């Protein structure tokens, strides 16, 4: 694919502003990723994967690549935390690990949480075995950009047969109150056999200036292990974000995911799951409740490579005002993945004439003995249901909120932690003006 002049220029401009510490053990990985980025370049209009998300044009207009990030002046992270949630907290402020704000004292035995840089010396073999494996740098320009430029990384490792009681919360804070912020952060999470982890990743930002944030994460779930994974995108700032999550499941592993997108100027989520084991179970849920001019793009891939596994994907959206959502869901069932059960559904409600959704479910099946379904719906609120509620004395606004809430809350189904569920429920209720 040929880049346009602008795209090439921008790609060059980004690259020319780089400086690598050549001595770092990972500089070889950075250079490899950079080469890949150089080849693909930023996506232009002809790039099918970014067809409805004009991110290159937006970055060109909004981001100055010559500016240094400013230091954040935030004095407390309390507003960004999840109330009452007992969690180990890893805080990244403007792309840098904050020891001050992180809460990693008295971490229970069996889990290691450290910066990726540190892990690269203490756990070199493990890191080099997994890093940049699930993330395909040749495929997505932002994945390669992130792998080339990451400023900070997080490494989480759970030992065999250890069930971690507390959740782990990765908090990304981008503070653009003094100047524009560009941050690239990364995580590598390895859950060994029979281990269990609940991971929450929350993106929060403040300030008036623009923010460009890429976050890439690789999660390896070994045999019989369990991962509960929640991503919360609730940004007040002018955030342009590309978040990439790549997960690999081994035999008999279980995965529950939920992605909630509420704010941001432009949010692109690439969420790829490779079900590379038998008898795996994946519940893959998402909810986007958008307003203003927010654009949120969820690109998901569920790739069944082995037989006898089950995946169920449900993404729902409510678009208000001028917001725009994109959903692209791919399911692959490879030739060896017989007896696969794979389901996908994307349902949308548009509240205004100016809100839009582009949805594209894609199913590619090479195996012949499988059960698969996919579908998408787009509509308005059910007028008949609205009248039914109103005829019982419920005001139009409340009836509308009740129906939207009922529509949205179904996606919370995979959440097991009650504190987290209540927190998410409140975010949804607040957004939908549910006050009854």
């Amino acid at each position: 694919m040929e880049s346009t002049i602008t795209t090439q220029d921008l790609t060059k401009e980004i690259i020319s502003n780089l400086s690598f510490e050549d001595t770092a053990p990972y500089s070889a990985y950075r250079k490899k990723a950079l080469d890949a980025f150089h080849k693909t370049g930023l996506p232009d209009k002809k790039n099918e994967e970014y067809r409805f998300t004009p991110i290159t044009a937006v970055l060109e207009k909004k981001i100055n690549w010559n500016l240094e990030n400013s230091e954040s002046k935030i004095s407390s992270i309390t507003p960004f935390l999840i109330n009452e949630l007992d969690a180990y907290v890893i805080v990244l402020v403007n792309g840098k690990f904050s020891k001050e704000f992180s809460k990693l004292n008295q971490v229970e035995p069996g889990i290691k949480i450290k910066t990726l840089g540190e892990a690269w010396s203490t756990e070199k073999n493990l890191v080099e075995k997994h890093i940049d494996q699930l993330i395909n740098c040749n495929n997505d320009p932002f994945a390669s950009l992130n792998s080339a430029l990451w400023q900070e990384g997080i490494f989480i490792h759970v030992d065999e047969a250890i069930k971690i009681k507390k959740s782990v919360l990765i908090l990304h804070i981008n503070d653009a109150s003094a100047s524009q912020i560009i941050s690239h952060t990364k995580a590598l999470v390895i859950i060994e056999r029979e281990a269990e982890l609940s991971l929450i990743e929350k993106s929060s930002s403040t300030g008036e200036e623009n923010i460009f944030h890429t976050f890439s994460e690789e999660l390896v779930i070994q045999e019989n292990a369990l991962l509960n994974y929640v991503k919360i995108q609730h940004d007040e700032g002018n955030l342009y974000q590309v978040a990439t999550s790549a997960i690999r499941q081994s035999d008999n592993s279980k995965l529950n995911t939920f992605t909630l997108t509420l704010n941001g100027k432009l949010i692109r989520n690439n969420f790829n799951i490779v079900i590379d084991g038998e008898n795996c179970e994946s519940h893959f849920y998402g909810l986007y409740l958008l307003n203003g001019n927010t654009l949120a793009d969820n690109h998901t891939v569920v790739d069944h490579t082995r037989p006898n596994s089950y995946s169920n994907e449900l993404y729902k959206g409510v678009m208000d005002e001028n917001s725009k959502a994109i959903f692209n869901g791919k399911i692959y069932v490879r030739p060896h993945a017989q007896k696969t059960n794979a389901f996908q559904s994307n349902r949308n409600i548009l509240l205004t004439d100016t809100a839009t959704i582009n949805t594209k479910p894609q199913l590619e099946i090479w195996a012949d003995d499988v059960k698969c379904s996919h579908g998408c719906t787009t509509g308005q609120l059910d007028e008949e249901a609205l009248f039914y509620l109103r005829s019982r004395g419920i005001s139009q606004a409340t009836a509308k909120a009740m129906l939207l809430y009922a529509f949205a809350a179904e996606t919370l189904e995979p959440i097991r932690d009650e504190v987290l569920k209540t927190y998410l429920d409140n975010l949804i209720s607040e957004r939908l003006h549910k006050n009854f």
Partner: protein
Amino acid sequence: MLTIKNLQAKIGEKPILNGIDLQVNAGEVHAIMGPNGSGKSTLASVLAGREEYEVTDGEIMYLGKNLLAFEPEERAGEGIFLAFQYPVEIPGVSTVNFMKTALNKVREYRGEPTLDAVAFLQLMKEKMKLVEIDQSLLSRSLNEGFSGGEKKRNEIFQMAMLQPKLAILDETDSGLDIDALRIVANGVNKLRTKYNATIVVTHYQRLLDYIVPDFVHVLYKGRIVKSGGKELAKELEAKGYDWIKNEVTVA
């Protein structure tokens, strides 16, 4: 209680009600009968405030107020209740939460104190007995997966909870077997007082064996063409609607 004068209504460009006159007083039960397409359900819908119908002429006075000026939710507050012919299934909204929200909104409207969880559950248990509805049904999503009979019982349960002054039962007998019909009718009868009124919209006489009307009106082509006592319903059952149609044509 309710005075309808020369009511005319249309949906899209199609006129459906062509001048209805009706007087309903407190304590009375009125049956509205008529062949399919005569405008029975439209009349019920216009009374409840369904927005697809446009009232083109006439007036509806209810307890001295212009009913047509009220939103559907205000009508519920004013004491109007429509039992739907086809109650809507609403996944994700639990019947109990819905009922609590509705009841407290209506009580707020009427200037009555709202009920806390304990008082609400107590009232609910009491009203559940009235329509022989099971608790397990109420913890489910509103009408979702309910049988025809369960949906109609749920309508009467809601009516019992909201204590309307004027209840309109739209084809409540449709889709009911004889046992369900009796349970639903018993519920309605227990709710009758000299202070409230009921309009029963029905195609068949069967329901009127259980809910005995004081007046029967026959609707045809958007007009009430004949009114009488409960014996009129029997006559219709025996002769069908054709003699009414003929009578109208001759006149």
